[in-house]
């Protein structure tokens, strides 16, 4: 993938994108702040969310087996997938065994992560995205740029034009109601005809084998109830020990993500029920790098994430660059710590540096992931360019004692003009491209201090 600084440069040049983003994230931020402020036990809820998730991560092996047994006892089938290829193969095989050429999908980051739609397409099966924003992106061959609001980078007029070209010829209005109606008319027939549904999950309950999806549009419930066959891809970290634990997370999640007290649709299903809903149920338990993250003492807290996206909305980097610069379905601060750990290769080494360490993300995280701390941890583990290592080694030497520091200060004073510096050589030219540098002062602090004695 393209390194973050270069990818960001491209996105930053798009003024329209920045305006759409700042506008949208400001709105969600304000809503979140309002509903969080009214919850008197918010800090206790965060602590509880953190503790429950930490327990899950500590005893994941036990909870996974408990979950598998409960799903099976309720009439479902469980598949274990080490990576994306194994998970995709399961879904493709299920769809094939029913001879369908289309499946309907609930909005799901996990299936985006494993690029399930491409795998299904390769097998001649179309995966229809039924979430409004995901449908927009699919129709326009675009990619999600936000965890909760995947088409946050698009505006109404763009969507109207896209619909006019694709699913609603002749549509003239860009009123949200009319756009929603156009997608509703298009999707309804497909829901009724669908024989296989595919979903991700917000939570899986080890105690009961239940799977939970929260959503705002109702399309998810269509996908999970109308088709006769349902396949759910569940990241192994999404488990909760007990059904009662949902009480904590169904408060934390909507308030943090959409800024609502409660999300409009909460679907929870447990196995197969005679004559009601899907009669064939599959759950794919996905690792895909999660156990690698689990093995890291500091980094594993990223697996507490419940995908609320509050950290994106407050991030001064994300709100400028947008999500595409992060080169992953997980953008923003959480993406900067999750993607490198899930992928575990050098291609993502620029992501932990894509932060000014302002700490706004940690402040809003509903499960108290110390994102700045994990960023520092991943920075320390990243391979740094040789020139940078030499430079930082030199600076470290200078800081080894006051005489060395004084020498460096004298050197700076002799090289730089007094007053304002407008241009510096590389790598400091990156500074002076957009900023002046206050020149070194006439008298350094130590001389002044000694002169008073």
């Amino acid at each position, binding site marked *: 993938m393209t390194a*973050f*600084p270069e990818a*960001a*440069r491209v996105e*930053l040049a798009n003024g329209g994108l*920045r305006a759409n983003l700042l506008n949208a994230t400001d709105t969600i931020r304000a809503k979140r702040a309002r509903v969080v402020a009214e919850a008197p036990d918010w800090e206790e809820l965060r602590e509880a969310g953190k503790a429950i998730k930490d327990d899950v991560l500590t005893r994941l092996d036990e909870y996974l087996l408990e979950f598998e047994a409960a799903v099976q006892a309720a009439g479902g089938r469980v598949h274990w997938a080490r990576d994306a290829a194994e998970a995709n193969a399961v879904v493709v095989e299920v769809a094939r065994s029913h001879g369908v050429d289309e499946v309907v999908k609930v909005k799901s980051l996990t299936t985006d992560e494993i690029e399930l739609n491409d795998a299904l397409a390769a097998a001649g099966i179309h995966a229809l995205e039924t979430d409004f924003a995901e449908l927009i992106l699919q129709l326009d061959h675009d990619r999600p740029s936000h965890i909760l609001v995947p088409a946050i980078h698009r505006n109404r007029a763009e969507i109207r034009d896209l619909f006019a070209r694709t699913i609603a010829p002749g549509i003239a209005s860009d009123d949200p109601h009319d756009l929603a109606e156009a997608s509703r008319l298009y999707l309804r027939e497909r829901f009724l005809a669908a024989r296989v549904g595919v979903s991700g999950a917000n939570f899986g309950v080890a105690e009961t084998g239940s799977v939970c999806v929260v959503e705002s549009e109702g399309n998810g419930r269509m996908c999970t109830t109308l088709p006769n066959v349902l396949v759910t891809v569940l990241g192994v970290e999404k488990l909760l020990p007990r059904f009662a634990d949902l009480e904590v997370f169904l408060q934390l999640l909507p308030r943090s993500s959409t800024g609502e007290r409660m999300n409009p649709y909460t679907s929870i299903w447990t196995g197969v029920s005679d004559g009601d809903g899907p009669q064939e149920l599959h759950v794919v338990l996905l690792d895909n790098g999660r156990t690698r993250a689990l093995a890291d003492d500091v980094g594993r807290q990223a697996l507490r994430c419940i995908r609320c996206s509050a950290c994106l909305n407050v991030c*001064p*980097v994300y709100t*400028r*660059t947008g999500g595409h610069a992060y080169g992953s379905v997980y953008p923003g601060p959480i993406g900067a710590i999750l993607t490198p750990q899930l992928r575990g290769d050098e291609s993502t080494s620029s992501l*932990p*540096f*894509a*932060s*000014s*360490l*302002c*700490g*706004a993300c*940690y*402040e809003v995280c509903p499960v108290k992931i110390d994102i700045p701390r994990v960023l*520092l941890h991943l*920075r*320390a*583990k*990243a391979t*740094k360019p040789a020139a940078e290592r030499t430079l*930082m*080694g030199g*600076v*470290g030497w*200078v*800081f*080894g*004692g*006051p005489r*060395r*520091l004084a020498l460096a*200060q004298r050197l*700076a004073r002799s090289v730089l003009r007094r007053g*304002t510096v407008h241009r510096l050589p590389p*790598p*400091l030219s*990156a*500074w002076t*491209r*957009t*900023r*002046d*540098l*206050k020149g*070194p*002062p006439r*008298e*350094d*602090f*130590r001389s*002044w*201090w000694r002169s008073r004695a």
Partner: protein
Amino acid sequence: MRIALFATCIGETLFPEACRATVEILERLGHEVVFPEAQTCCGQMHLNSGYADEAARLGRRFVRIFGDYEAVVSPSSSCVGTVREQYGLENVLELSELLVHRLGIEDVGAAFAGRVTYHSTCHSLRLTRVGNAPVRLLGNVRGLELVELPRADECCGFGGTFSIKNADTSSAMLADKCAAVESTGAAVCTALDGSCLLQIGGGLSRRGSAVRALHLAEILAST
């Protein structure tokens, strides 16, 4: 009280005025200020850039030099945040914190004419947690008109080596910060951290703005 000054590497190199001002304020209030000559850097730059070993070495050095003082003051909330969080040194305080929370002083007898806006730096808010101490101090400066900065709690884009490694993103954040500062009609933008002022001041200067970036200590030292 006997207070040790931690000037910080960036402070003594680029902002000696802020360090001098810190000394002057505390001496004016009757305290003794000492300057441990062996000091250099707390290690934050190496820590934040991913050089953990180097940072740990500088951290140990810092603790040796400052660990035993009753109180250490620094004109940088970011460096204070690092030494408190990483090395657990609770005796190290940022200037406004020392004045308001420790010494109980909200009026330092300063006078400064003009309209001033205050940028609450990220680490003063979220790491050092100085709260409204700077605003209370500014509120008691004679002749000073304090105007609120829109989106004051949003990062200016400095972030240490982030400003070089991700210069484009850093500059986009800075452009918004400079525009917010200019929208206030203030003559001066102040903050607790030299590093952030380096960024904001550098941006304002490049835009040819009339607004000056000035460390809080310099305003509080003015009479």
